[in-house]
């Protein structure tokens, strides 16, 4: 590779960004392109012409999808935007002549929801059209130039077992020992933690009160340490050993860089993955954000801090007065403030740490409520569209990050919209059914196809609806409340590492989805009845609304399925990885084998031959990293055919550190599974969701029968996991 090529591949200044850096040219091109798009969007066409136009656009998009690349995706986006804007223009100019109060309430309500969805769609395109795809910048060979780092592990109520793993992994980070200081910031003020810190040889920082929660905790530590950089890890985020050497290079390259974020990767299934059985098959809720959105933000220099797995430069942070404390999402707000001061933020899409996902649906929802509330608070108190210091791209990216959390009400509107017609005969579209189809269908189909092409690796089609439906009801109220008064609401900590010891149906959490499901089922019955009995019925309109309702039933039934909490088999989640290992048998023989999985205190091994081992037998097991080998005492949990389960219970601190070094802190362990879910095709995704919905219906009926059978009130009978 030639020198210049190397330069180009490492520098994140893409050709697009270079174009955009010439303001005159950029503005001219941009404005004329906008004018053309609006012109095309507003040309009046009759039904046949519009159908033909849409068909051609759709055909081109499908053709382009086969050759998806950066430029073809841009072309697809343009076509999708044109179709959607045509729909919007038509919707606002030709379908609004509502008659009567009922029509107007439902009609304008739906239009408002549609406007919101369209705005988020457009902003999303801006955000994700050209992910920067930044690569690590190499550090100087002279180690004395490497800066000093304070590694903070803030904790409040996480158990020591969880934090211990993070600390041991942090100690294994490959960074000069005299320039890496690790601190536990314990807001729980637990003696047990203080003892552990002195045993492990790391710092322990605590304070008198818990004011400003996590942000206050970090700021307290900031005043007591002196490192040039701060690396923060949530108590359950286990870093790999290469974290700092991979992430620090950009700071030395770009002196204006203030924050570099890496993905949050989870090695345990979140409640969706656990309860729906989709772990590593369907990308989870967070993957779109870390796989694509943040990488897209990076192009616009609008990457935001996510509270963990990130490096922050001390000087700019102190210039701000520390981490932002005004909102409950101090992380995003801190990044916004850094950007306002003219500092750069960066994203490196390479998982260099992994953590525990929230265990239960209620915990998951609690966490998202906090995010939603915090984003609404920032929107209210420090709106990215206003104020100094931001470029247009940054404003739009931050705006979308905040608007995203306003989906609660619009999502509920879409989930109930067809009922307005089916139950109340409200005409939310003042147009013929065929025209509605000719405008709305191309808009929806193309937006879905284009998004599937852009996001397919990190979000499967229609899953967005499922994720939003589960959360919509819960985040709607705090967001609205925060918009009214940003001070309302309390910080809640996400509980992690709990155990769900049996299957149960979370009635309390599922209530909103059950209501939605029942309403839509009622809608279908009423609609079908009209179709059969009412001779004057508008068949086309009924069919459109019935199909929409059917889709809503599928989505809300899938949401119901999420509330059926599946029993968790292991207290410590396992990581699936094939690593070389050696078993030392009691008879002195050593057998070479491979791990299937590992955890903090156990190993699953796959053997080349069957071994005569019994539960409780004591053996030794070796793990490797290159030439390094460590031997651990272990006891046999089970030995079936060629599979062996070992428990590593009685390890001392050094042995635990060794084990962490050879397993969790491997540099490539998370990168090798990230973004490797099954490829998305919209039809297969819909099929998958439909079967999940079917399961949701069955689980709901079974749970109902159980409740009726035991004649017990669900609130008493079904206790939620204590987390």
């Amino acid at each position: 590779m030639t020198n210049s090529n190397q330069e180009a591949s490492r520098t994140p200044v893409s050709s697009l960004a270079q174009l955009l850096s010439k303001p005159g040219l950029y503005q001219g091109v941009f404005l004329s392109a906008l004018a053309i798009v609006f012109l095309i969007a507003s040309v009046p066409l009759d039904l046949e012409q519009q159908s033909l136009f849409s068909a051609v656009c759709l055909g081109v998009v499908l053709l382009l999808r086969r050759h998806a690349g950066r430029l073809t995706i841009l072309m697809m986006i343009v076509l999708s935007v044109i179709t959607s804007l045509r729909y919007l223009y038509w919707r606002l100019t030709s379908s609004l002549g509502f008659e009567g109060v009922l029509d107007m309430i439902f009609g304008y309500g739906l239009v408002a929801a549609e406007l919101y969805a369209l705005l988020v769609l457009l902003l999303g395109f801006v955000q994700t059209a050209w992910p920067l795809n930044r690569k690590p910048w190499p550090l100087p060979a002279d180690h004395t130039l490497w800066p000093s780092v304070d590694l903070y592990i803030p904790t409040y109520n996480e158990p020591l077992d969880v934090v211990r793993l993070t600390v041991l992994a942090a100690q294994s980070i490959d960074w000069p020992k005299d320039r890496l200081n690790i601190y536990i910031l314990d807001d729980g003020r637990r003696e047990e933690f203080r003892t552990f810190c002195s045993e492990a040889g790391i710092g322990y920082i605590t304070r008198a009160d818990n004011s400003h929660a996590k942000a206050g905790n970090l700021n307290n530590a900031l005043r007591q340490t002196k490192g040039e950089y701060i690396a923060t890890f949530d108590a359950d985020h286990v870093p790999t050993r290469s974290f700092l050497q991979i992430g620090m290079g950009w700071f030395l390259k770009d002196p204006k860089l203030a924050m570099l974020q890496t993905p949050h990767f989870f090695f345990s299934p979140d409640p969706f993955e656990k309860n729906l059985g989709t772990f590593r098959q369907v990308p989870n809720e967070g993957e779109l954000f870390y796989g694509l959105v943040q990488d897209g933000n990076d192009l616009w220099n609008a990457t935001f801090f996510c509270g963990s797995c990130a490096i922050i430069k001390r000087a700019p942070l102190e210039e701000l007065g520390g981490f932002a404390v005004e909102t409950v999402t101090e992380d995003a707000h801190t990044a916004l403030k850094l950007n306002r001061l003219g500092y750069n933020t960066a994203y490196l899409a390479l998982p260099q740490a992994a953590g525990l996902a929230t265990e239960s649906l209620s915990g998951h929802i609690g966490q998202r409520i906090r995010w939603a509330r915090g984003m609404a608070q920032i929107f209210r108190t420090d709106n990215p569209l206003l104020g100094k210091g931001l470029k247009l791209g940054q404003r739009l990216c931050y705006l979308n990050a905040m608007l995203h959390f306003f989906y609660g009400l619009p999502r509920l509107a879409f989930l109930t919209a067809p009922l307005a017609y089916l139950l109340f005969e409200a005409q939310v579209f003042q147009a013929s059914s065929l025209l509605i189809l000719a405008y709305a269908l191309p808009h929806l189909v193309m937006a879905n196809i284009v998004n599937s092409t852009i996001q397919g690796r990190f979000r499967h089609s229609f899953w967005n609806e499922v994720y939003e439906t589960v959360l919509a009801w819960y985040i709607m109220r705090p967001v609205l409340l925060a918009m009214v008064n940003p001070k309302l609401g309390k910080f809640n900590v996400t509980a992690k590492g709990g155990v769900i010891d049996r299957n149960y149906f979370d009635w309390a959490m599922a209530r909103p989805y059950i209501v939605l499901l029942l309403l839509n089922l009622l809608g279908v019955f009423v609609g079908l009845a009209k179709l059969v009995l009412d001779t004057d019925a508008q068949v086309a309109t009924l069919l459109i609304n019935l199909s929409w309702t059917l889709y809503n039933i599928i989505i809300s039934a899938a949401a119901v399925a999420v509330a059926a909490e599946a029993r968790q088999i292991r207290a410590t989640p396992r990581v699936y990885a094939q690593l070389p290992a050696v078993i030392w048998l009691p008879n002195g023989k050593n057998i070479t084998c491979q791990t299937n999985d590992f955890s903090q205190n156990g190993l699953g091994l796959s053997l080349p031959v069957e071994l005569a081992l019994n539960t409780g037998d004591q053996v030794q097991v070796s793990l490797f990293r290159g030439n390094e080998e460590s031997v651990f005492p272990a006891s046999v949990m089970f030995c079936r055919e060629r599979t062996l389960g070992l428990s590593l219970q009685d390890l001392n601190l050094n042995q635990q550190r060794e084990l962490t070094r050879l397993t969790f802190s491997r540099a490539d362990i998370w990168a090798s599974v990230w973004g490797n879910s099954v490829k998305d095709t919209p039809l297969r995704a819909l099929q998958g969701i439909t079967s999940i919905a079917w399961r949701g219906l069955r689980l709901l009926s079974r749970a109902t029968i159980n409740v009726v059978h035991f004649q017990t009130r669900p609130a008493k009978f079904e206790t939620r996991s204590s987390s």
Partner: protein
Amino acid sequence: MSISSDIPNLFGTFFDGETEHYLEISQQNDAYEARIRWPVLTEVELNTRALADEKKISNCGDHSLNKVLPVQQQPKPNSIRVITLISPKGGVGKTTLAANLAVALQTLGHSVLAIDFDPQNALCHHFQAISKSQLDSRTGIFTQESDWNTLSICTNTGVVVLPYGVLTGQQRSAFEVSLEGNPQWLAHKLRDLGLADGTLVILDTPTGVSPYLCQALSVANIALVVTLADAASYRALPLITHQIESCASNRNDFSMRYVINQQENAQQLNKDIAKVLRRNLGEQVLGSIHRDQSMAEALAHSRSILEQDPHTRGSHEILQCAQALIRQLAVQQDRQLA
């Protein structure tokens, strides 16, 4: 310093970076701590001159050692190649290793001749097909006039073995005196055998410095020093390496390699010495073989560990060493051609 496999995998697979500047703190610290723990012992300076010479040539990194090449892809030497096993002190398992390496090389598709050049005459005990009658006291390589072709014994593993034979003390002294008088004796014997191109010859030599050693070194392409990771072996190493250097240095078809035998990672001293050895000798360490009961049991059945217990660690490590030998020979050959 070698880089553990997870780093090249991350750099190579996900962003095409260069691993040279990656700093492995933990490895560095380990070697440092080992020196701190055993200060007297680690004062002994090991010879690392050869390492500097060969760094330019050899590109087989440590991590490639673990990858098993399919037989067809293995480089085959085009003339005969001699691998001499040497031990600085007794009881390091040299003969056992010689026999097992011979079988491993044969398994990998090479023709192998194993010559017992050690008066202990122990090599033949590792091969089943060699019965009492074949070990007649009249036969053995010492016989001046003997035709080695008739002496050689084809074993069931495919390895051809030449036993030293059973000698009286008088015979042995006479033989050793004649060896000293004729430094080229072994070279001539080998030439007279007319071995096919590509044949690998494994030479087992007596412990320490002896008239056998110099003869064996004069024909060797690889001097394979078998050592334990213990204090006695560690101290004895400089003497033997000095001898090897003086007998065979300055040949471009010669290299010296080490095998750390009977390694025991559960013992701190053993583990530390192995680390120091690896750090000081770098790529000169061909591999290590861990203590494995199967190795002892294999000898009790007069067979190799590969036949005895193919899944044990010993088997895997013997095979890896054999592959590393083949690679080293290929590198040598490239160097000769160039």
